[in-house]
């Protein structure tokens, strides 16, 4: 077999639709034998928080307020036409109806296909979070140097 190709995705956005794009590429690439890394930073961290609804996690009052407002997996907004959080639910229903994988299914597929999930050390620090605040599939908390190291020789996408 040929040498494994590699793709590394930086998920900066915490938008529902952009997370779908990231996980579609990630699971699709993993299914065709790519090594896949996703590096979650800033708003993107909301996708992989262990607590899926709004919760005041984190150290320090301001961090707790921020985390509450940012929310978790269930609060990811649509990047356009969000309608106060109604649209992601409508969109998920539409996806089910049309037999397109939902975000949850895409994330599960990515995990089953051994996509590597990493969280950004710097933004976690700002938000007063720690590794335990994220789903256990998050492999490691790391910085940009390690990310560059991991993504070397492959393609990088910033979403």
């Amino acid at each position, binding site marked *: *077999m040929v040498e494994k190709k590699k793709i590394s995705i930086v998920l900066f956005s915490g938008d529902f639709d952009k997370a779908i794009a990231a996980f579609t590429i990630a699971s699709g690439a*993993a*299914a*065709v*034998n790519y090594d896949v890394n996703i590096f979650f930073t800033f708003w993107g961290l909301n996708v992989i928080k262990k607590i899926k609804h709004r919760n005041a996690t984190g150290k320090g009052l301001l961090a707790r307020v921020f985390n509450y407002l940012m929310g978790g997996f269930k609060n990811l907004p649509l990047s356009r036409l969000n309608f106060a959080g109604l649209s992601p639910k409508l969109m998920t229903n539409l996806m089910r109806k049309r037999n397109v*994988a939902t975000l949850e299914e895409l994330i599960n597929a990515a995990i089953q296909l051994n996509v590597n999930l990493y969280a950004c050390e710097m933004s976690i620090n700002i938000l007063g979070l720690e590794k335990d605040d994220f789903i256990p599939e998050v492999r490691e908390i790391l910085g940009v140097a390690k990310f560059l190291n991991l993504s070397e020789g492959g393609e990088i996408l910033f979403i």
Partner: protein
Amino acid sequence: MKTFKLDITKEHCPMTFVKTKLELEKLSKGDILEVVLKEGEPLENVPKTVTEQGNKVLEIKNIQDDIFLVIIEKG
């Protein structure tokens, strides 16, 4: 050697080849996977990607209108 069946006629990208890959992972070398799929994207991609991953496409049959059967031997 066992034969397994997978119907992905209702799936869309990327789940067509994601489900095929996950199913193939459960099989042992030499097992047969019969995938039922639609023409277009799945028919173009599934045989190609499974071959790239060291499996063998034994046969592709048109079984009904736009529905195809792809017989894969796990490598």
